[in-house]
């Protein structure tokens, strides 16, 4: 009992004292940057480029560590148990917020500090080139004329893409009887199903479908964003087509840390992120990968995460996915 008390006191003391000492000359040793994905994917590539750019500003190396496994569980467990001293940070995406509400309920948005948002990716709908559907209105008409004749392929139920579709469907007055959501193991698999003509349509991102659209094997019939995508200047937004879907619902990527990082350290990290996103290498990469730079500092990012979490919760309940 006594040792436990002592230990608790020591931890409490270190929480208050240690950061105060460390803050002045932060950072003075390498920073661990934990990813929930294996090397080679889009999130990994972006993180590595960001790490190189941030290293120049901060003066210490950012060591990227891949911690895949348990659909984010391995990364989050490591992150949550790390000291909140700014020497351990992690990648975050909208998928994490989905997981907080579904598979990883031991965490929630308040379990972590939200340091900076990096980029956004709007959702879009693609159809096979041979499909009769030419616009979002065509899709709505086809679904209304013959409920169940159109199926929408995408990632698992409860994923960001699934909610994106539900938001679009709601704006058009469609329900799950008229258009069924078919979950695939990845967004890429869903796009492949649309390529092969097995699914009428799929929800995806610009980056994932660009080569197929350029080659003429897929067609984009609408994008859920305020402005048209630079890569597809001829594709009207859903709003332009007369459907008022929430364009703030996009796939985001950012940086989080363990709960309780002192404000000055968070600010320093966020400033380094903001600067890194302006380097020519990252600007070129984001452009090439069709990512929209959407930097947010800690306070705004925390608010964004809370809002996204509330929306996720609401949709989970509405769709009966809260089991």
């Amino acid at each position, binding site marked *: 009992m006594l040792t436990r008390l002592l230990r608790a006191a020591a931890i409490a003391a270190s929480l208050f004292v240690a950061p105060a000492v460390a803050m002045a000359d932060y950072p003075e040793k390498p920073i661990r940057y934990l990813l929930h994905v*294996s*090397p*080679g*994917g*889009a999130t*990994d*590539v972006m993180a*590595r480029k960001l790490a190189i750019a941030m290293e120049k500003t901060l003066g210490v190396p950012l060591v*990227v560590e*891949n*911690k*895949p*496994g*348990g*659909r984010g*569980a*391995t990364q989050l*467990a490591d992150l949550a148990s790390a000291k909140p001293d700014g020497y351990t940070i992690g990648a975050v995406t909208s998928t994490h917020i989905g997981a907080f509400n*579904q*598979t*990883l309920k031991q965490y929630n948005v308040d379990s972590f500090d939200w340091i900076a948002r990096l980029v956004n990716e709007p959702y879009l709908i693609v159809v096979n080139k041979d499909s009769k559907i030419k616009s979002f209105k065509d899709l709505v008409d086809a679904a209304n004329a013959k409920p*169940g004749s159109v*199926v929408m392929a995408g990632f*698992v*139920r*409860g994923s960001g893409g699934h909610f994106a579709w539900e938001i679009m469907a709601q704006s058009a007055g469609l329900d799950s009887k008229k258009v*069924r*959501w*078919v*979950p*695939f*193991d990845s967004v*890429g698999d869903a796009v*492949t*199903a649309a*390529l*092969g*003509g*097995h*699914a009428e349509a799929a929800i995806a991102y610009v980056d994932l479908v*660009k*080569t*197929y659209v*350029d*080659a003429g*094997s897929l067609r984009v019939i609408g994008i859920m964003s305020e402005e048209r995508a630079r890569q597809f200047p001829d594709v009207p937004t859903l709003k332009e087509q007369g459907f008022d879907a929430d364009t703030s619902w996009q796939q985001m990527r950012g940086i989080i840390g363990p709960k309780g990082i002192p404000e000055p350290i968070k600010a320093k990290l966020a400033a380094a992120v903001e600067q890194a996103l302006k380097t020519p290498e990252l600007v070129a990469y984001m452009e*090439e*990968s069709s990512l929209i730079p959407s930097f947010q500092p800690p306070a705004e990012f925390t608010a964004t995460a809370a809002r996204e979490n509330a929306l996720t919760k609401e949709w989970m309940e509405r769709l009966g*996915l809260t*089991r």
Partner: protein
Amino acid sequence: MIDGFLAGLSAFSSWQVIAGLFGGVVIGYIVGALPGLSAGVGMALLIPFTFGLDPVVSVVMLVTLYMASEYSGAIPAILMNTPGEPSSAITALDGYPMRERGEAGEALTLSILSSAVGSVISTVLLIFSVLWMTKIALAFGPAEYFALAVLGLSLISTLAGHSVLRGFIALLFGLLLTTVGTDPVDGVMRYVFNDGLLGGFPFIAALIGLFALSEVLRMLETPGNRTTPLKALPGLSAQIGLLKPHTGNMLRSTFIGYILGVIPGAGATIASITAYSVQKRFSKSPQTFGKGNPEGVVAAETANNACMPGALAPMLALGIPGKASTAVLVGALAIQGVRPGPLIFTQHPEIPYSIYIALLVGMPFMVMLGLFGSRMWVRLTTIPASVVTAIVAATCLLGTYSESNEIFAVGVAVGFGIVGYLLAKVEIEPAPIVLALVLGYMMESNFRRSLVMSGDDMTVFLREPISAICLGLAAIIFVAPLVQTLLGRRRRRAAAGETSVLSEEASR
């Protein structure tokens, strides 16, 4: 095509590309031979080092790594019953019994030579058919994948060894295990008592447990430092001559491997299992499969190496990564600003063609290493069993951990090791369990996906032609051995009647 080859060849004029080629093969040998470190993981580990490299150098290095590791998984499979790659578990079925008979050198020779033949023929097929193969890759939707998985599971009737009943028990046990994890359609968690199970039982950990650790436990039964005798290998030309009787087997297995490689989501393990089962059907001595029949080693190794160029077809021509390893390749190219897909042959012809050249040029180097190695590595078998078991156990556990960085996976490997050991006591073999672990998720997820798409209409599986053909074949494969057994019994009875008549005549 000639322009493309010229572009590819000119890329090979730089020393960096040649260095990448050799480096890739050597690293691939190591990655493949280490259990737990699969081709995909090895390639992923190399990615950060390819950042500053030229796109051709990095892709050549990764592709030769992939090629060599698909082979070298056979080395520990044959020598220590420890599959270095998932697909070499099938090589171990006959390779390890061969080694126990002292034929390790012969098994290793056959494995490297048949790997080379499978890989070269398959690469040539890839060069000429890459654009047609995209049709096959895209023809597979949920209904087709379900039917393909059922077809794969029907192979149990040949894989089962001497007891069909035991084979079924093992298969059902394996299928039961695949129900653990996140539900593929609703995302509901099933039997997930640890976060490590969210994606189901970690496959590589289970495989290492079932094969290697259960063998380690079995070796503990015999005390003392038993070593197996080792038969000497003939000279080099006679060594290559060992391959002669297997021509038909290799051609069939290459074709099976290539096609299954093209279909995204199938892969080397399914290719090996299929080629092995088919060869058993064609073989004149099917009863010795699983007891050290060289045909089994040749079929499994030819198929898993033929699978790899096949997997490159949808990756290059469609940008669809069908396997973990090709997904890493797509990522590596994306870092360099090259997008595999329909436009790669016009925008970056040097990439596909330098891959072709790397596969063809890297092969002789890989074979030389392998043939030399078949004389070197066999010496492992002369090391006392007590030392070998300790090393195998340690590398297996380390490999399992490195695959996922989770200690839970190590527990899974140990658990499966004990289960595999106990099942061996009642003569239940691990191969059907592996078959179920590979295909169970594919079958379930695509079955349910098809039903969501069709609105719970079961006839969808018979309306789609590919699906209907696969299911029909599965039914035939499944029923044929039963009919054969029945007919055999009748024939035997008739034969028994005849001999009694003959003996009567003789006695007169």
